[in-house]
Protein backbone atom coordinates (compact mmCIF):
# COMPACT_ATOMS: atom_id res chain seq x y z
CA UNK A 1 0.00 0.00 0.00
CA UNK A 2 2.85 2.39 0.84
CA UNK A 3 6.12 2.74 -0.93
CA UNK A 4 9.22 1.30 0.70
CA UNK A 5 10.79 4.69 1.22
CA UNK A 6 7.71 5.84 3.10
CA UNK A 7 7.78 2.82 5.40
CA UNK A 8 11.45 3.46 6.07
CA UNK A 9 10.73 7.12 6.80
CA UNK A 10 8.03 6.09 9.26
CA UNK A 11 10.31 3.61 10.99
CA UNK A 12 13.08 6.19 11.20
CA UNK A 13 10.78 8.91 12.50
CA UNK A 14 9.23 6.66 15.14
CA UNK A 15 12.66 5.47 16.28
CA UNK A 16 13.72 9.10 16.60
CA UNK A 17 10.60 10.01 18.59
CA UNK A 18 11.36 7.37 21.21
CA UNK A 19 14.75 8.94 21.92
CA UNK A 20 13.96 12.64 21.54
CA UNK A 21 11.01 12.27 23.94
CA UNK A 22 12.97 11.60 27.14
CA UNK A 23 16.02 13.65 26.07
CA UNK A 24 13.73 16.56 25.19
CA UNK A 25 12.29 16.51 28.72
CA UNK A 26 15.77 16.99 30.13
CA UNK A 27 16.45 19.73 27.57
CA UNK A 28 13.42 21.61 28.91
CA UNK A 29 14.03 20.87 32.59
CA UNK A 30 17.66 21.94 32.40
CA UNK A 31 16.91 24.94 30.16
CA UNK A 32 19.12 23.60 27.42
CA UNK A 33 17.08 24.59 24.37
CA UNK A 34 19.86 26.79 23.07
CA UNK A 35 22.40 24.18 23.98
CA UNK A 36 20.64 21.70 21.70
CA UNK A 37 20.64 24.37 18.99
CA UNK A 38 24.35 24.99 19.45
CA UNK A 39 25.15 21.31 19.11
CA UNK A 40 23.01 21.12 16.00
CA UNK A 41 24.83 24.09 14.45
CA UNK A 42 28.19 22.54 15.22
CA UNK A 43 26.96 19.42 13.42
CA UNK A 44 27.47 21.23 10.10
CA UNK A 45 31.15 21.38 10.87
CA UNK A 46 31.01 17.67 11.63
CA UNK A 47 29.44 16.95 8.25
CA UNK A 48 32.03 18.95 6.34
CA UNK A 49 34.84 17.21 8.21
CA UNK A 50 33.24 13.88 7.32
CA UNK A 51 33.45 14.82 3.66
CA UNK A 52 36.98 16.21 3.96
CA UNK A 53 38.42 13.10 5.56
CA UNK A 54 35.98 10.65 4.04
CA UNK A 55 34.64 9.26 7.32
CA UNK A 56 31.15 8.29 8.41
CA UNK A 57 28.90 11.36 8.81
CA UNK A 58 27.20 10.28 12.03
CA UNK A 59 30.52 9.41 13.62
CA UNK A 60 32.09 12.70 12.60
CA UNK A 61 29.10 14.71 13.85
CA UNK A 62 29.19 12.83 17.14
CA UNK A 63 32.86 13.70 17.59
CA UNK A 64 32.50 17.38 16.73
CA UNK A 65 29.30 17.90 18.73
CA UNK A 66 30.76 16.13 21.76
CA UNK A 67 33.89 18.24 21.51
CA UNK A 68 31.87 21.46 21.31
CA UNK A 69 29.73 20.34 24.24
CA UNK A 70 32.75 19.56 26.40
CA UNK A 71 34.38 22.86 25.44
CA UNK A 72 31.19 24.56 26.59
CA UNK A 73 31.22 22.77 29.96
CA UNK A 74 34.83 23.84 30.37
CA UNK A 75 34.19 27.47 29.37
CA UNK A 76 31.26 27.69 31.78
CA UNK A 77 33.64 26.95 34.59
CA UNK A 78 36.55 29.14 33.58
CA UNK A 79 34.96 32.30 32.20
CA UNK A 80 32.57 34.82 33.66
CA UNK A 81 30.43 35.01 30.53
CA UNK A 82 26.80 33.98 30.89
CA UNK A 83 25.75 30.64 29.44
CA UNK A 84 23.75 32.04 26.55
CA UNK A 85 26.66 34.20 25.37
CA UNK A 86 28.93 31.15 25.36
CA UNK A 87 26.32 29.18 23.44
CA UNK A 88 26.01 31.92 20.83
CA UNK A 89 29.77 32.11 20.54
CA UNK A 90 30.16 28.39 19.96
CA UNK A 91 27.09 27.99 17.73
CA UNK A 92 27.95 30.72 15.30
CA UNK A 93 31.68 30.19 15.19
CA UNK A 94 31.31 26.47 14.53
CA UNK A 95 28.64 27.19 11.91
CA UNK A 96 30.93 29.75 10.28
CA UNK A 97 33.91 27.41 10.27
CA UNK A 98 31.68 24.72 8.78
CA UNK A 99 30.61 27.03 5.98
CA UNK A 100 34.19 28.16 5.33
CA UNK A 101 35.30 24.55 5.04
CA UNK A 102 32.43 23.84 2.64
CA UNK A 103 33.78 26.64 0.46
CA UNK A 104 37.09 24.82 0.16
CA UNK A 105 35.38 21.58 -0.76
CA UNK A 106 34.21 22.91 -4.11
CA UNK A 107 34.96 19.58 -5.76
CA UNK A 108 32.10 17.99 -3.86
CA UNK A 109 28.56 18.96 -4.71
CA UNK A 110 26.97 19.88 -1.43
CA UNK A 111 23.29 19.75 -0.73
CA UNK A 112 23.10 22.52 1.88
CA UNK A 113 19.32 22.37 2.04
CA UNK A 114 19.58 18.66 2.78
CA UNK A 115 21.95 19.36 5.62
CA UNK A 116 19.83 22.10 7.11
CA UNK A 117 16.49 20.34 6.84
CA UNK A 118 17.38 16.70 6.36
CA UNK A 119 15.53 14.29 4.14
CA UNK A 120 13.69 11.62 6.02
CA UNK A 121 12.37 10.11 2.77
CA UNK A 122 15.94 9.35 1.67
CA UNK A 123 16.65 7.17 4.71
CA UNK A 124 18.10 3.80 3.72
CA UNK A 125 18.27 0.50 5.57
CA UNK A 126 21.70 1.24 7.00
CA UNK A 127 20.46 4.56 8.39
CA UNK A 128 17.54 2.75 9.98
CA UNK A 129 19.93 0.41 11.69
CA UNK A 130 21.95 3.37 13.03
CA UNK A 131 18.81 5.09 14.30
CA UNK A 132 17.26 2.09 16.05
CA UNK A 133 20.48 0.60 17.34
CA UNK A 134 22.02 3.94 18.32
CA UNK A 135 18.70 5.09 19.78
CA UNK A 136 18.43 1.95 21.89
CA UNK A 137 21.92 2.51 23.30
CA UNK A 138 21.13 6.16 24.09
CA UNK A 139 17.92 5.15 25.88
CA UNK A 140 19.69 2.41 27.82
CA UNK A 141 22.40 4.78 29.03
CA UNK A 142 19.78 7.40 29.88
CA UNK A 143 17.91 4.80 31.94
CA UNK A 144 21.07 3.90 33.83
CA UNK A 145 21.96 7.51 34.68
CA UNK A 146 18.33 8.59 35.16
CA UNK A 147 18.38 8.92 38.93
CA UNK A 148 21.60 10.91 39.36
CA UNK A 149 20.83 12.97 36.26
CA UNK A 150 17.35 13.83 37.47
CA UNK A 151 18.60 14.56 40.98
CA UNK A 152 21.25 16.93 39.67
CA UNK A 153 18.64 18.56 37.44
CA UNK A 154 16.45 19.28 40.45
CA UNK A 155 19.34 20.51 42.58
CA UNK A 156 23.00 20.19 41.74
CA UNK A 157 24.38 20.62 45.25
CA UNK A 158 21.91 18.24 46.80
CA UNK A 159 22.91 15.60 44.26
CA UNK A 160 26.59 16.30 44.84
CA UNK A 161 26.22 16.17 48.63
CA UNK A 162 24.37 12.88 48.56
CA UNK A 163 26.92 11.14 46.38
CA UNK A 164 25.18 11.22 42.99
CA UNK A 165 28.26 12.46 41.09
CA UNK A 166 26.42 15.10 39.04
CA UNK A 167 29.51 16.21 37.16
CA UNK A 168 30.02 12.75 35.72
CA UNK A 169 26.40 12.29 34.65
CA UNK A 170 26.34 15.81 33.17
CA UNK A 171 29.17 14.86 30.84
CA UNK A 172 27.47 11.58 29.89
CA UNK A 173 24.21 13.42 29.22
CA UNK A 174 26.03 15.96 27.07
CA UNK A 175 27.50 13.19 24.96
CA UNK A 176 24.06 11.59 24.63
CA UNK A 177 22.79 14.89 23.27
CA UNK A 178 25.59 14.95 20.73
CA UNK A 179 24.78 11.35 19.84
CA UNK A 180 21.09 11.96 19.15
CA UNK A 181 22.01 14.87 16.91
CA UNK A 182 24.55 12.71 15.12
CA UNK A 183 22.09 9.94 14.34
CA UNK A 184 19.21 12.21 13.40
CA UNK A 185 20.93 14.88 11.31
CA UNK A 186 20.28 13.04 8.06
CA UNK A 187 16.57 12.78 8.77
CA UNK A 188 15.44 16.11 10.15
CA UNK A 189 18.54 18.22 9.60
CA UNK A 190 20.38 20.79 11.66
CA UNK A 191 17.58 23.29 11.99
CA UNK A 192 14.79 20.94 12.90
CA UNK A 193 16.36 18.51 15.36
CA UNK A 194 16.04 21.11 18.11
CA UNK A 195 12.34 21.37 17.33
CA UNK A 196 11.94 17.63 17.62
CA UNK A 197 13.65 17.74 21.01
CA UNK A 198 11.77 20.70 22.43
CA UNK A 199 8.25 20.82 21.04
CA UNK A 200 6.91 17.38 22.07
CA UNK A 201 8.46 17.80 25.52
CA UNK A 202 6.95 21.29 25.82
CA UNK A 203 3.56 19.83 24.91
CA UNK A 204 4.03 17.15 27.54
CA UNK A 205 4.88 19.77 30.17
CA UNK A 206 1.48 21.35 29.62
CA UNK A 207 -0.26 18.10 30.47
CA UNK A 208 1.96 16.27 32.95
CA UNK A 209 2.17 16.66 36.71
CA UNK A 210 5.09 14.35 37.38
CA UNK A 211 8.36 13.58 35.60
CA UNK A 212 7.58 10.05 34.44
CA UNK A 213 4.26 11.15 32.99
CA UNK A 214 5.98 13.97 31.13
CA UNK A 215 8.47 11.56 29.55
CA UNK A 216 5.71 9.20 28.39
CA UNK A 217 3.59 12.06 27.00
CA UNK A 218 6.63 13.51 25.29
CA UNK A 219 7.28 10.21 23.50
CA UNK A 220 3.62 9.91 22.52
CA UNK A 221 3.67 13.51 21.27
CA UNK A 222 6.74 12.80 19.16
CA UNK A 223 5.18 9.65 17.69
CA UNK A 224 1.97 11.50 16.82
CA UNK A 225 3.96 14.33 15.26
CA UNK A 226 5.88 11.89 13.07
CA UNK A 227 2.71 10.05 12.00
CA UNK A 228 0.66 13.18 11.32
CA UNK A 229 3.61 14.97 9.72
CA UNK A 230 4.56 12.17 7.37
CA UNK A 231 1.02 11.32 6.27
CA UNK A 232 0.18 14.94 5.65
CA UNK A 233 3.41 15.45 3.75
CA UNK A 234 2.32 12.60 1.50
CA UNK A 235 -1.18 14.03 1.22
CA UNK A 236 -0.20 17.62 0.49
CA UNK A 237 3.16 16.87 -1.07
CA UNK A 238 4.91 19.08 1.51
CA UNK A 239 8.49 18.76 2.78
CA UNK A 240 8.59 15.90 5.28
CA UNK A 241 10.90 17.17 8.04
CA UNK A 242 9.21 20.56 8.38
CA UNK A 243 5.80 18.84 8.23
CA UNK A 244 6.71 16.74 11.26
CA UNK A 245 7.74 19.81 13.24
CA UNK A 246 4.61 21.66 12.16
CA UNK A 247 2.51 18.71 13.33
CA UNK A 248 4.34 18.85 16.67
CA UNK A 249 3.49 22.54 16.92
CA UNK A 250 -0.20 21.78 16.34
CA UNK A 251 -0.09 19.19 19.12
CA UNK A 252 1.50 21.79 21.38
CA UNK A 253 -1.30 24.25 20.64
CA UNK A 254 -3.88 21.52 21.25
CA UNK A 255 -2.33 20.81 24.64
CA UNK A 256 -2.95 24.43 25.56
CA UNK A 257 -6.59 24.29 24.57
CA UNK A 258 -7.11 21.14 26.57
CA UNK A 259 -5.64 22.71 29.66
CA UNK A 260 -7.70 25.89 29.52
CA UNK A 261 -10.86 23.83 28.93
CA UNK A 262 -9.98 21.62 31.86
CA UNK A 263 -9.54 24.67 34.06
CA UNK A 264 -12.91 26.05 32.99
CA UNK A 265 -14.57 22.76 33.88
CA UNK A 266 -12.96 22.85 37.28
CA UNK A 267 -14.51 26.23 38.00
Amino acid at each position, binding site marked *: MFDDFFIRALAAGLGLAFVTGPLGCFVIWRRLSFFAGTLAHSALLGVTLAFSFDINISFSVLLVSSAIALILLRLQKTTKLPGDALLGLLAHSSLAIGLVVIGFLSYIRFDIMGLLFGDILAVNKKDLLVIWFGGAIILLILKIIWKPLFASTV*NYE*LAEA*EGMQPEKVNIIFTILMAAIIAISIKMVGILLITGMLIIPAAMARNLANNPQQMVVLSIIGGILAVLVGLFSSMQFNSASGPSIITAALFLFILSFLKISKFRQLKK
Partner: protein
Amino acid sequence: MKENNNILVKLENTGVQVDKKWLVKGVSFEIQRGKIVTLIGPNGSGKTTTAKLALGIHKNIEGKVHKFTNKIGYVPQKISIDWTLPLRVSDFMILTENLTTNEIDTALDLTGVKHLKNNDLRNLSGGEFQRVLIARAIAKKPDLLVLDEPVQGVDFKGEIALYELIKKISEKLGCGILLISHDLHVVMSATDFVVCLNGHVCCSGTPQAVANDSKYKELFGDRASTILSVYEHDHDHTHSTDGTIETKK
Protein backbone atom coordinates in the same frame (compact mmCIF):
# COMPACT_ATOMS: atom_id res chain seq x y z
CA MET B 1 40.96 1.29 60.81
CA LYS B 2 39.00 0.33 63.88
CA GLU B 3 39.15 3.74 65.44
CA ASN B 4 37.57 5.14 62.30
CA ASN B 5 34.45 3.09 62.73
CA ASN B 6 32.55 5.83 64.45
CA ILE B 7 33.94 8.76 62.54
CA LEU B 8 31.77 9.75 59.58
CA VAL B 9 33.53 12.85 58.36
CA LYS B 10 36.80 14.36 59.42
CA LEU B 11 37.99 17.81 58.39
CA GLU B 12 41.68 18.55 58.73
CA ASN B 13 42.69 22.18 58.54
CA THR B 14 40.33 22.79 55.64
CA GLY B 15 39.63 26.04 53.90
CA VAL B 16 38.23 27.34 50.64
CA GLN B 17 39.18 30.38 48.63
CA VAL B 18 36.98 32.07 46.02
CA ASP B 19 38.34 34.93 43.93
CA LYS B 20 41.35 35.19 46.24
CA LYS B 21 39.13 35.70 49.25
CA TRP B 22 39.07 33.09 51.96
CA LEU B 23 35.51 32.07 52.73
CA VAL B 24 36.72 29.99 55.61
CA LYS B 25 40.13 28.79 56.68
CA GLY B 26 41.77 26.33 59.03
CA VAL B 27 38.69 24.39 60.06
CA SER B 28 39.18 21.06 61.79
CA PHE B 29 36.61 18.88 63.47
CA GLU B 30 35.07 15.48 63.14
CA ILE B 31 31.56 14.12 63.20
CA GLN B 32 30.95 10.83 64.91
CA ARG B 33 28.05 8.44 64.78
CA GLY B 34 25.29 9.39 67.21
CA LYS B 35 26.77 12.83 67.92
CA ILE B 36 25.44 16.24 67.01
CA VAL B 37 27.97 18.84 65.96
CA THR B 38 26.75 22.41 65.58
CA LEU B 39 28.24 25.29 63.67
CA ILE B 40 27.48 28.74 64.98
CA GLY B 41 28.74 32.14 64.03
CA PRO B 42 27.61 35.51 62.66
CA ASN B 43 26.45 36.03 59.06
CA GLY B 44 29.22 35.46 56.57
CA SER B 45 31.34 33.53 59.04
CA GLY B 46 31.50 30.48 56.79
CA LYS B 47 28.95 28.12 58.34
CA THR B 48 27.34 27.01 55.10
CA THR B 49 30.72 26.88 53.40
CA THR B 50 32.03 24.62 56.15
CA ALA B 51 29.01 22.33 55.78
CA LYS B 52 29.64 22.17 52.03
CA LEU B 53 33.28 21.38 52.72
CA ALA B 54 32.23 18.46 54.87
CA LEU B 55 29.87 17.31 52.12
CA GLY B 56 32.52 17.53 49.44
CA ILE B 57 30.60 20.08 47.36
CA HIS B 58 33.50 22.51 47.21
CA LYS B 59 36.33 21.50 44.92
CA ASN B 60 39.88 22.86 45.01
CA ILE B 61 40.04 23.14 48.74
CA GLU B 62 42.82 23.59 51.20
CA GLY B 63 43.41 20.82 53.71
CA LYS B 64 41.76 17.45 53.75
CA VAL B 65 38.24 16.11 54.11
CA HIS B 66 37.86 12.43 54.87
CA LYS B 67 34.41 11.09 54.15
CA PHE B 68 33.73 7.63 55.54
CA THR B 69 30.16 7.36 54.33
CA ASN B 70 28.15 8.14 51.25
CA LYS B 71 24.77 7.72 52.88
CA ILE B 72 24.10 11.37 53.52
CA GLY B 73 20.93 13.36 54.00
CA TYR B 74 21.33 17.04 53.23
CA VAL B 75 18.99 19.90 53.98
CA PRO B 76 20.51 22.91 52.22
CA GLN B 77 20.02 26.45 53.41
CA LYS B 78 18.76 27.66 50.07
CA ILE B 79 17.17 25.55 47.41
CA SER B 80 15.18 26.68 44.43
CA ILE B 81 13.12 24.28 42.40
CA ASP B 82 12.62 25.24 38.80
CA TRP B 83 8.98 25.59 37.80
CA THR B 84 9.78 23.80 34.56
CA LEU B 85 9.93 20.59 36.56
CA PRO B 86 6.64 18.85 37.19
CA LEU B 87 7.53 17.55 40.63
CA ARG B 88 5.25 16.31 43.37
CA VAL B 89 6.32 15.92 46.96
CA SER B 90 6.36 12.14 46.52
CA ASP B 91 8.68 12.45 43.48
CA PHE B 92 11.00 14.71 45.43
CA MET B 93 11.17 12.23 48.30
CA ILE B 94 12.80 9.57 46.11
CA LEU B 95 15.23 11.99 44.48
CA THR B 96 18.43 10.28 45.56
CA GLU B 97 17.19 7.03 47.09
CA ASN B 98 14.55 4.48 46.23
CA LEU B 99 12.00 4.35 49.04
CA THR B 100 8.87 2.31 49.60
CA THR B 101 5.54 4.10 49.88
CA ASN B 102 5.56 3.17 53.52
CA GLU B 103 8.93 4.79 54.14
CA ILE B 104 7.81 7.95 52.35
CA ASP B 105 4.60 8.14 54.36
CA THR B 106 6.36 7.56 57.67
CA ALA B 107 8.93 10.29 57.05
CA LEU B 108 6.34 12.80 55.88
CA ASP B 109 4.18 11.93 58.85
CA LEU B 110 7.07 12.57 61.25
CA THR B 111 7.53 16.10 59.98
CA GLY B 112 3.78 16.67 59.84
CA VAL B 113 3.28 17.06 56.09
CA LYS B 114 1.85 13.69 55.03
CA HIS B 115 -1.27 15.40 53.70
CA LEU B 116 0.86 17.23 51.12
CA LYS B 117 2.25 14.03 49.57
CA ASN B 118 0.60 14.48 46.19
CA ASN B 119 0.93 18.26 46.01
CA ASP B 120 3.05 20.00 43.46
CA LEU B 121 6.34 20.96 45.11
CA ARG B 122 6.22 24.57 43.98
CA ASN B 123 2.82 25.17 45.55
CA LEU B 124 4.10 24.60 49.07
CA SER B 125 4.66 27.41 51.54
CA GLY B 126 8.16 28.07 52.81
CA GLY B 127 7.57 26.26 56.09
CA GLU B 128 5.86 23.30 54.44
CA PHE B 129 8.70 22.96 51.96
CA GLN B 130 11.21 23.03 54.78
CA ARG B 131 9.35 20.16 56.48
CA VAL B 132 9.42 18.20 53.21
CA LEU B 133 13.17 18.83 52.91
CA ILE B 134 13.74 17.43 56.39
CA ALA B 135 11.46 14.46 55.70
CA ARG B 136 13.42 13.67 52.53
CA ALA B 137 16.74 13.84 54.33
CA ILE B 138 15.69 11.50 57.13
CA ALA B 139 13.63 9.09 55.01
CA LYS B 140 16.71 7.53 53.47
CA LYS B 141 18.02 6.64 56.94
CA PRO B 142 21.36 8.33 56.42
CA ASP B 143 24.58 7.80 58.34
CA LEU B 144 25.14 11.52 58.31
CA LEU B 145 22.58 14.30 58.36
CA VAL B 146 23.70 17.77 57.37
CA LEU B 147 21.12 20.36 58.30
CA ASP B 148 21.72 23.94 57.25
CA GLU B 149 19.23 26.02 59.22
CA PRO B 150 16.63 23.30 58.85
CA VAL B 151 13.74 25.07 60.54
CA GLN B 152 13.87 28.42 58.77
CA GLY B 153 10.36 29.63 58.06
CA VAL B 154 8.77 26.97 60.25
CA ASP B 155 6.24 28.20 62.81
CA PHE B 156 7.32 28.49 66.44
CA LYS B 157 5.59 25.36 67.66
CA GLY B 158 6.87 23.35 64.72
CA GLU B 159 10.40 24.60 65.26
CA ILE B 160 10.72 23.00 68.67
CA ALA B 161 8.97 19.84 67.51
CA LEU B 162 11.33 19.50 64.56
CA TYR B 163 14.43 19.96 66.71
CA GLU B 164 13.04 17.32 69.04
CA LEU B 165 12.51 15.08 66.03
CA ILE B 166 16.06 15.61 64.81
CA LYS B 167 17.42 14.69 68.20
CA LYS B 168 15.19 11.61 68.36
CA ILE B 169 16.26 10.51 64.91
CA SER B 170 19.93 10.81 65.68
CA GLU B 171 19.38 8.57 68.67
CA LYS B 172 17.23 6.08 66.78
CA LEU B 173 19.35 5.82 63.64
CA GLY B 174 22.60 6.41 65.46
CA CYS B 175 23.57 8.82 62.71
CA GLY B 176 25.86 11.77 63.07
CA ILE B 177 24.44 15.25 62.58
CA LEU B 178 26.06 18.44 61.42
CA LEU B 179 23.71 21.25 62.33
CA ILE B 180 23.79 24.92 61.49
CA SER B 181 21.48 26.95 63.63
CA HIS B 182 20.98 30.48 64.81
CA ASP B 183 18.92 29.29 67.72
CA LEU B 184 21.46 29.33 70.51
CA HIS B 185 18.96 27.76 72.90
CA VAL B 186 18.84 24.65 70.76
CA VAL B 187 22.56 24.69 70.08
CA MET B 188 23.46 24.89 73.71
CA SER B 189 20.97 22.32 74.93
CA ALA B 190 20.83 19.60 72.35
CA THR B 191 24.27 19.29 70.86
CA ASP B 192 27.43 17.45 71.81
CA PHE B 193 30.02 19.65 70.20
CA VAL B 194 29.91 23.27 69.13
CA VAL B 195 32.17 24.89 66.56
CA CYS B 196 32.06 28.65 66.67
CA LEU B 197 33.12 30.13 63.35
CA ASN B 198 34.16 33.55 62.23
CA GLY B 199 36.07 32.90 59.03
CA HIS B 200 38.15 30.51 61.09
CA VAL B 201 37.43 28.38 64.13
CA CYS B 202 36.93 30.92 66.85
CA CYS B 203 36.46 28.37 69.60
CA SER B 204 35.08 24.88 69.84
CA GLY B 205 34.18 22.31 72.44
CA THR B 206 31.21 21.23 74.50
CA PRO B 207 28.38 23.77 74.74
CA GLN B 208 29.43 24.62 78.29
CA ALA B 209 33.03 25.21 77.30
CA VAL B 210 32.06 27.40 74.35
CA ALA B 211 29.54 29.42 76.33
CA ASN B 212 32.25 30.27 78.84
CA ASP B 213 34.85 31.11 76.21
CA SER B 214 35.71 34.78 76.07
CA LYS B 215 35.86 34.70 72.27
CA TYR B 216 32.31 33.44 72.13
CA LYS B 217 31.20 36.28 74.36
CA GLU B 218 33.03 38.72 72.15
CA LEU B 219 31.33 37.39 69.05
CA PHE B 220 27.79 37.05 70.31
CA GLY B 221 27.68 39.57 73.12
CA ASP B 222 27.32 39.07 76.83
CA ARG B 223 23.66 38.17 76.65
CA ALA B 224 24.39 35.07 74.59
CA SER B 225 26.45 33.50 77.32
CA THR B 226 23.55 33.65 79.72
CA ILE B 227 21.49 31.48 77.37
CA LEU B 228 22.95 28.31 78.77
CA SER B 229 21.81 29.14 82.27
CA VAL B 230 18.42 30.28 81.02
CA TYR B 231 18.00 27.02 79.23
CA GLU B 232 18.99 24.91 82.21
CA HIS B 233 16.50 26.78 84.33
CA ASP B 234 13.67 26.08 81.93
CA HIS B 235 14.53 22.50 81.26
CA ASP B 236 11.69 20.79 83.17
CA HIS B 237 9.02 22.85 81.57
CA THR B 238 9.71 22.42 77.91
CA HIS B 239 9.44 18.65 77.54
CA SER B 240 6.61 16.44 78.64
CA THR B 241 7.27 12.86 79.64
CA ASP B 242 5.98 11.19 76.51
CA GLY B 243 8.33 13.20 74.35
CA THR B 244 5.79 15.64 72.99
CA ILE B 245 6.37 19.29 73.55
CA GLU B 246 4.68 21.53 76.01
CA THR B 247 5.18 25.14 75.16
CA LYS B 248 5.59 27.34 78.13
CA LYS B 249 2.71 29.57 79.06
